[in-house]
């Protein structure tokens, strides 16, 4: 590694003030610090520091998404081969999905990081690591057949309007990945919902076997079906919902894979277990309420199945826990998470315009998170004032 280090030290002056390539300083620094944790030593305050840094934190979230990503790749292929009625080996299936998903990942990262690099340079900042996670989350919450240009446009929108205008990572109000999805959802609704978008090639319909349906379970439930089936008419039961070989956005279908990610996030202490737990609790309670007062089949879907369907688990584990856009006080996290889950199921079941409510529930609660925090902080302040009165 000495050689690499020497090379970096050699080219470094070109990027420093007065150098020819000064305009790329932020970009250079981003790559340099990616390769080498810098030799900066502590100047003020504590002389020693924890090894944890933003790169580590973000890298871990990316690691946690890998099970969902790999499963999503396999499932994309699986659903495709189901739709064309072919039998494929595991590796053929996976490889098909891999080729389908990889371009989306590339487009998301290139667009998002490109904008981040430009903004970092304009501001004279170091490049923030936040997009490393967003760039991975975006491909996981879109349908496999989404046109790549749409991903690029939506990502650019989310990074600029959702994040950079507020001052970059740490300052944003809304979760950038969900902002991307919301943009896609409202700008190109035909590509983001319906029965045909979830499985590659279904819109063109080439080679698709007769009678094949690409409807998601939630889509079927919204039409008050009581028995859910996959494209070729096999029953979808609780196991399939949990395992995830059902139509849906790339990374959201497998509750199992998502829970592996959740385990990594909670165990390492990166994500708040309070939020994850309370989202599930909120969803379950709303589901129970709906079950109790069920007047149609959708309302009668068992509450625990709601937690396995759609983007619920994915939203709870990877979206609601975004530390920047979530509530930041410990008590606030309970309230925030609960309301995310509660509202997600409410919107999902009772609003006929949206077959899925998780995205909107999280975005809505992102907006309300500062308000929740405000009241939690006020509570702390009031406790202190009360203590003063008691002693006076």
């Amino acid at each position, binding site marked *: 590694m000495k050689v690499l280090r020497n090379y970096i030290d050699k080219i470094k002056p070109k990027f420093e003030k007065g150098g020819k390539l000064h305009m790329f300083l932020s970009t250079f620094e981003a790559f340099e610090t990616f390769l080498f944790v810098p030799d900066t*030593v502590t100047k003020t305050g504590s002389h020693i520091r924890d*090894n944890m840094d933003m790169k580590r934190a973000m890298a871990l979230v990316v690691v946690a998404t890998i099970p969902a990503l790999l499963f999503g790749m396999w499932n994309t292929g699986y659903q495709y081969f189901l739709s064309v009625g072919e039998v494929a080996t595991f590796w053929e299936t996976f490889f098909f999905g891999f080729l389908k998903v990889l371009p989306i990942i590339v487009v998301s990262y290139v667009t998002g990081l490109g904008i981040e690099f430009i903004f970092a340079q304009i501001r004279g900042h170091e490049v923030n690591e936040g997009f490393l996670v967003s760039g991975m989350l975006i491909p996981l919450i879109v349908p496999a057949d989404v046109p790549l240009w749409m991903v690029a446009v939506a990502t650019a929108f989310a990074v600029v309007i959702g994040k950079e205008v507020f001052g970059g*990572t740490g300052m944003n109000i809304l979760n950038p990945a969900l902002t991307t999805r919301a943009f896609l959802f409202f700008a190109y609704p035909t590509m983001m919902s319906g029965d045909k978008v979830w499985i590659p090639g279904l819109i063109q319909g080439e080679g698709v076997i007769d009678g094949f349906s690409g409807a998601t379970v939630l889509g079927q439930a919204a039409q008050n079906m009581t028995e859910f089936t996959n494209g070729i008419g096999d029953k979808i039961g609780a196991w399939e919902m949990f395992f995830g070989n059902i139509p849906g956005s790339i990374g959201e279908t497998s509750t199992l894979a998502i829970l592996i990610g959740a385990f990594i996030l909670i165990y390492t*202490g990166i994500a708040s277990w309070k939020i994850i737990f309370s989202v599930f609790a909120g969803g379950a309670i709303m589901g129970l309420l709906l079950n109790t007062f069920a007047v149609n089949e959708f309302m009668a879907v068992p509450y625990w199945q709601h937690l396995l369907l759609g983007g619920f688990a994915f939203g709870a584990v990877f979206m609601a826990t975004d530390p920047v856009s979530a509530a930041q006080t410990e008590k606030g996290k309970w309230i925030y998470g609960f309301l995310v889950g509660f509202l997600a199921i409410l919107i999902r079941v009772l609003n006929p315009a949206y077959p899925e409510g998780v995205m909107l529930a999280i975005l809505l609660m992102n907006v309300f998170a500062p308000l929740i925090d405000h009241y939690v902080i006020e509570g702390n302040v009031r406790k202190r004032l009360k203590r003063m009165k008691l002693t006076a």
Partner: protein
Amino acid sequence: MSEIIRIKKGLDIKLKGKADKIYQRAERASAYSIKPTDFKGVMPKLVVKVDDEVMVGSTLFFDKYNPSVKFTSPVSGKVSSINRGERRRILEVVIEPDAEDSYIDFKIGDLSKMTREGIVELILESGMWPSIIQRPYASIANPEGKPKAIFISGFDSSPLAPDYDFMLKESHAEFQKGIDVLKTLTDGKVHLSVDASYPTGETYSKTQNIDLHKIKGPHPAGNPGIQIHHIDPVNKGELVWYVNPAEVVRMGKLFIDGKVDNTLTIALAGSEVLKPVYYKLIRGAAVDSILKDNIVEGNNRIISGNVLTGTRLAKAGFLGYYDNLLSIIPEGDHFDFIGWASLGFGKYSVSRTFWSWLTPKKEYKIDTNLKGGVRAFVMSGEYEKVFPMDIMPVQLLKSILVEDIDQMEKLGIYEVAEEDMALCEFVCTSKIEVQKILREGLDVMKKETE
């Protein structure tokens, strides 16, 4: 015996190189210094000039804002230099010692017949006053104030901290006398907190006239600020004082024989020390003589105090006024290839993102590398895990950053000091300068209220 106060949040960072409980003789240092920079918010006004002869207890300088607060010479000798920094700020008043110390005799009468004013006056005159710290602001106590209580933390929970039971062995009489003196300064109680995890030593257990508290938990449980918060918190407009137990002993000695005894026990510790042991020396001593031949070759950082809150010293620097620990750790000015992505078996972290959590009992050698870049606040809930007060640390820091004085007050700035939030800085993923920000807040607040 009162109940045990359990502190749950916090962190004991296990560092290599804890001092063995052995005394090593320290030679008389070649120079001694009192550093005005050790005293927060003090504007020094010099009384001596270079070449003046001083005795133990002669005033070197006083605080311009509080002229009665005097800083006196720890040894007798000659003022050899006055070192200044930027804008002629005084950094060090250096004294070249005589071979033997001669003391100013502060005439001591019968303590029970002395008035509070008389006692305060004597402590001020002797130069012992700066050892009394107040909350709010964690600055030298204002002699005109009257605290609602005085706190003494009987132990230090910080990394590599010296053992007070060992240091204060056989000092019971002096400690008791010091307590009696402090008792006259407040109408309230004098609280002494001891570590509940081991039996209390005689110096503390035999002491009368105090409220004894047993505290159990990880660092910062030994910080007076944390203990005050859990025993008798500071509200707006209230004042408490706190004193280090070694200073209480010293105060006792002053009231027994009228002399200022500046002998200190310090621990020399850290991963780069060859033989970590205790030394007896005099306050403000140049550290080069005890470091000579006892530290590992290489680029080391010499810290007066502990690794979380201490002051960085030059090779021939002087021990800080308040410090009874000298920590030596390696400098971390090296690059770490894809360090953020390594498995991290030997890399210490509170988060379990590094595999060092597999070896929780291991003692670590931690260098001074920042280990990452500075970022905006992103993670939440990190500080709360190591900050055992019912105060919201991140929100408090944010209120300081936007200079919202009203909010700082509401969020409890009167109760905290840098040392209490030092662990927040240690764990911070965004590498935010917590202690620096907090001090700025405390300074703004102090200016606003005085």
